[in-house]
């Protein structure tokens, strides 16, 4: 499971909907990648030096293929969106803990528990898989990885959805849209309520307000929620302390209630973080 920087090869790139791209790359990292982990993608431009953290959306381990789905939101992702089949792209990874480690409380450095395989720890449970906006992509691999019962709730801005077909194949999908043009008008929580969705555990990724809502919802319903956070990153490997999030208790690294999203996260037990 060692991290490394590697030159990957672009396998394919396509635009899914306006400004949202799907990029498959060939990399030896594919076989290690787990749902909820991410990689750092370099732009190759000397004026934009830092890696762009992008979640792993899907993998085909046997073909060494790894997929990212991302939104062009600035100069770096714009450059990445110009990559074509056969182009080289430098990536660093695999980064972060992923849902599996988060869900069993495993922590790479403190190692205060053993890593329990995700599907073992979730046996007999039902997971609500929630994605909002550009937080939807990592939930695809999460949903695919789950062998237990699951239901998916996806929140889009409007009816220009992406990846929806692929989620549909995995089970029941409920949709919310900000403008009501598809599914429930409102948030993913609104969709959960409207459709009477229930479950034992939540896996989620999305914008901060959504995650706050999920944290509150999980608490109210006595559920566990594992949520994936974002922060600006420099190193991606825990060295720069750029990417911290506040924690309820002392973090094990610095003991100051500030834990690193790139190493101890990005997926956290919602009760652990103070968001």
């Amino acid at each position, binding site marked *: 499971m*060692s*991290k*490394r*920087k590697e030159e990957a090869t672009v396998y394919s790139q396509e635009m899914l909907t306006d400004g949202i791209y799907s990029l498959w790359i060939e990399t030896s990292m594919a076989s290690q990648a787990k749902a909820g982990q991410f990689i750092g993608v*370099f732009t190759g431009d*000397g*004026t*934009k*030096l*830092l*890696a762009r953290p992008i979640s792993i959306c899907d993998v085909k381990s046997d073909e060494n293929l790894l997929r990212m789905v991302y939104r062009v939101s600035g100069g*770096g992702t714009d450059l990445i969106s110009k990559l074509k089949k056969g182009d080289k792209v430098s990536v*660093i990874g695999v980064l972060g803990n992923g849902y599996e480690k988060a869900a069993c409380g495993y922590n790479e450095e403190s190692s205060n528990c053993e890593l329990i395989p995700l599907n073992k720890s979730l046996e007999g449970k039902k997971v609500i898989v929630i994605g909002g906006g550009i937080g939807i992509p990592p939930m695809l691999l999460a949903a695919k990885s789950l062998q237990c019962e699951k239901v998916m709730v996806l929140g889009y801005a409007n009816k220009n959805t992406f990846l929806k077909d692929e989620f549909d194949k995995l089970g029941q999908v409920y949709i919310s849209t900000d403008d009501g043009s598809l599914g429930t008008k409102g948030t993913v929580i609104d969709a959960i309520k409207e459709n009477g969705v229930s479950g034992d555990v939540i896996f989620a990724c999305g914008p901060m307000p959504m995650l706050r809502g999920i944290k509150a919802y999980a608490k109210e319903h006595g559920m566990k929620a594992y949520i994936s956070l974002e*922060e*600006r*990153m*420099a*190193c*991606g*490997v*825990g*060295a*720069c*302390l*750029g*990417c*911290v*999030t506040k924690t309820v208790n002392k973090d094990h*690294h*610095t*003991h*100051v*209630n*500030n834990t690193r999203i790139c*190493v101890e996260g990005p997926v956290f037990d919602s009760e652990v973080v103070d968001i």
Partner: protein
Amino acid sequence: MNTKVTIAGVELKNPVMTASGTFGSGQEFSEMTDLNKLGAVVTKGVSSVPWPGNPTPRIAEVYGGMLNAIGLQNPGIDVFIERDIPFLQDYSCKKIVNVCGKTVEEYLAVVERLNDQPIDMMEINVSCPNVKEGALAFGQDARVLEDVTKKIKAVAKKPIIMKLSPNVTNIKEMGLAAEAGGANAVSLINTLMGMKIDINRKKFVLANKTGGFSGPAVKPVAVRMVYDVAHTVKIPVIGMGGIATAEDAIEFMMAGATAISVGTMNFVDPETTSKIADGIEQFMKDKGIEDINDIIGCVE
């Protein structure tokens, strides 16, 4: 061919070091690059008690570099001695611990704790632009710097490197002050003070408003300051600021640096340091340079 350099009696197998705060305690990068190829690892700044650092966002990317406003988050000297120093013992690189504090007393407390630790040198950060008290203030006034250096030297049992701020009118004066205070070496540059504004949100990108500017973009400023200080003081100078390649490292050494540190570029390529070590050897081979010490300060 000799690639060894000596700073305050400490012999480094090569002049390549990591810059404080960009390489954690060494551990974080240890699976990505070979610490045994390094002259020295310089650790993240450590204070007498744990510091939480600044609010996020702490990182902003800028043209050819980055801004950081970490604010010296660190677990404090206790955890550091218990966890981080032991980790480094397995490696043959020299160990340099970077020390920060808000008052002179805090610096002294850390220095005293480190005195009997298995480390080689201490680097005193009096130049961090991201904490309100202490730190930078000590590094922007020559008299204060000399005084702090003296007080630290009075208790330190390891060689002391004073890390200088580039945010000053006269860097020579600062080098001389550190030397007068008894520093065994100086290192520079720490980060330049910078700012970035998100024009769409009319907000500072960093929660701290300003941040320390580092990366390839700052190199010309750093080379100039290293040259100025190296040609003013007699103690060794450790150069840094934007080093990305062996050519950059050699440029700093020609300007007068005895050793060099790589900071921001570790984030861009974790193997930067080891590539630089190899690249310096290659340069020496190509040019028929037998002793790396012949490069130091050789610019005319």
